């Protein structure tokens, strides 16, 4: 029973961290219509950024600044945002798919840097022995994990409410206006490139923050945590729940990560050991099918975006509804 509870806490921490990433992607794709094909790259930048800032000083490494965890988290998020700025500046004034291609490139390049720039990233071995925030205040590591879960849920909650406020603000309305019709938005005197850049950089920074939270949880960072499949998983999570809706995004994380974990478990049970890696591609095939089938059959996802009407019109409609005599 305890084993199951321990696993559940672990599962939920990962789910919450992914939910933060999905919310970042939702800001980019769901609300602004920007295709990010290198989600894992921004997540990795955040993770390595945090790891380098908080890590212990080692002679062989450039990093290891022994900063407090919060500083590391912010630093990772800022680094990811800066990477978003570089690709955004290059591509956001061009046709939309250039952003997709450039972000795909970031994903691959970060993986290479992580593997090859040994002095900064520890190469294939990664950076180990990173301090976990407030770990020494807990006697039992299970209690610590539970506390960490509460912590990441709080952070996810703050991001959720901040994003909800942001997308309902005038700024959020411009995002959707640009997504629906750039020309119309521009004719109203809005600057689509600048607004898109803001949304893209903010979304990238949120993904970086998720990376930092992951590092704080597992206490090390290595290239195998940042395989390209993660980008596809995050995308599947976003569209299954319904892009343009943060609650849908969170539901999608539970559904997709559930499918992924369960299919991995069954493959582990059924397939003989020598064929595990080969059969593991079934998991990726499922993710690919989820993406393509959702796009074809239910592009709105499970929940989908709420119909947006102006609050004025909604009020009028409600009043008209109330006035109507009961049948």
């Amino acid at each position, binding site marked *: 029973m305890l084993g199951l509870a321990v696993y559940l806490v672990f599962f939920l921490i990962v789910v919450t961290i992914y939910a933060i990433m999905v919310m970042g992607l939702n800001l980019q794709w769901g609300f602004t219509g920007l295709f990010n094909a290198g989600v894992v790259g921004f997540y990795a930048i955040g993770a390595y950024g945090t790891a380098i800032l908080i890590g212990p000083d080692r002679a062989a490494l450039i990093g290891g600044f022994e900063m407090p965890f919060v500083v590391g988290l912010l630093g990772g998020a800022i680094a990811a945002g800066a990477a978003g700025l570089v690709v955004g500046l290059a591509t956001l004034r061009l046709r939309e798919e250039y952003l997709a291609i*450039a972000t795909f490139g970031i994903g691959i390049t970060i993986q290479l840097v992580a593997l090859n720039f040994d002095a900064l990233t520890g190469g294939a071995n990664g950076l180990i022995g990173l301090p976990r925030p407030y770990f020494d205040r807990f006697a039992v590591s299970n209690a610590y994990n539970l506390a960490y879960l509460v912590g990441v849920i709080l952070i996810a909650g703050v991001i959720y409410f901040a994003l909800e406020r942001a997308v309902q603000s005038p700024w959020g309305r411009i995002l959707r206006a640009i997504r629906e019709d750039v020309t119309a938005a521009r004719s109203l005197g809005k600057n689509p490139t600048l607004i898109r850049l803001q949304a893209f950089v903010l979304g990238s920074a949120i993904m970086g923050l998720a990376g930092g939270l992951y590092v704080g949880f597992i206490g090390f960072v290595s290239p195998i945590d940042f395989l390209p499949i993660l980008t*596809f998983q995050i995308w599947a999570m976003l569209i299954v729940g319904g892009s343009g809706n943060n609650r849908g995004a969170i539901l999608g994380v539970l559904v997709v990560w559930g499918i992924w974990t369960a299919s991995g478990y069954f493959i582990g049970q059924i397939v003989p050991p020598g064929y595990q890696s080969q059969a593991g591609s079934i998991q990726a*095939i499922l993710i690919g099918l989820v*993406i393509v089938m959702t*796009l074809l059959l239910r*592009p709105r996802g499970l929940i989908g975006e709420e119909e947006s009407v102006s609050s004025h019109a909604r009020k009028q409609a409600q009043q008209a509804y109330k006035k109507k005599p009961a049948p």
Partner: protein
Amino acid sequence: MLQALADGLLTGAIYALGAIGLTLTMGILRFANFAHAEMMTWGAYMALGVLTVFGLPTAPLGPLTFGWPLLLATVVACALTVALALLIDWLVFRRMRDRVGHLTLVFASFGIALLIRNVVHLIFGGRATYYTTELQIAVRVLPDLRIMPDQVFTLSLAVVLVIAVHQFLQRTPLGLSMRAVSENPSLAVINGVSLARVVRWTWIVGGALAAVAGVLYGVTVQLRPELGFHLLLPLFAAVILGGVGNVVGAVVGGVLIGLIESFSVLVIPPGYKLAIPFLVLLVVLYLKPTGLFGGTSGGR
């Protein structure tokens, strides 16, 4: 230096073959097809599958490591790759065209890329393989230049195919229709060009070239399920460098990317070689997003 030039030309020739198909898709079908490079993986592995299933002998042809069975298998692989491309178009892209924003097609192709790659991985396993186990000794052409016969074959075949595609697009009525749709779809349709036919032939030409490029990559490097995944970025860089929709541009772009990659190894650690196309891409997008030769539809 000379060696880097030769290696770069070889890689560049393979990039060029892949980039032609990609630039046609981006110019005519008007979306960045993330699944294009996976068609190279598919083609390369289909040729391997034909060799394995039919137990064809791999007796070498002259100084090459492979014999006529691989050439035959390549033809079959082309057919199977075209079939896959048409199937995907019929199942997915056709249902989306003109109905949803074109970014949804990009998204769908992104998912399809994952599907193809992992189906190949599931069938053939993840280990690197080769068409033959024949060893080939590089011939010393000049004091500091060694070339393998396979590489000469690859380069010659690529040149022949590039010329053939160019003639096809310039000289035949079908090629003219394809260029017309690439320039201006509405105007082409008004003038009686069948859009469905042009779309079909775009997949046929692109798919067949992708399969050949995949096989040639398998011959000169190795076969891995991630083959296409690693080629996608150089292909996109080649297409954008040459100008989206511009076939000559794609060829020049492909060769240039190959050369830049190959020469970069003289300066930077080889581990970063894969990042070079990305840097070139960023520079092009910052300085001249329409590419060297100007595209038909991309750019702005």
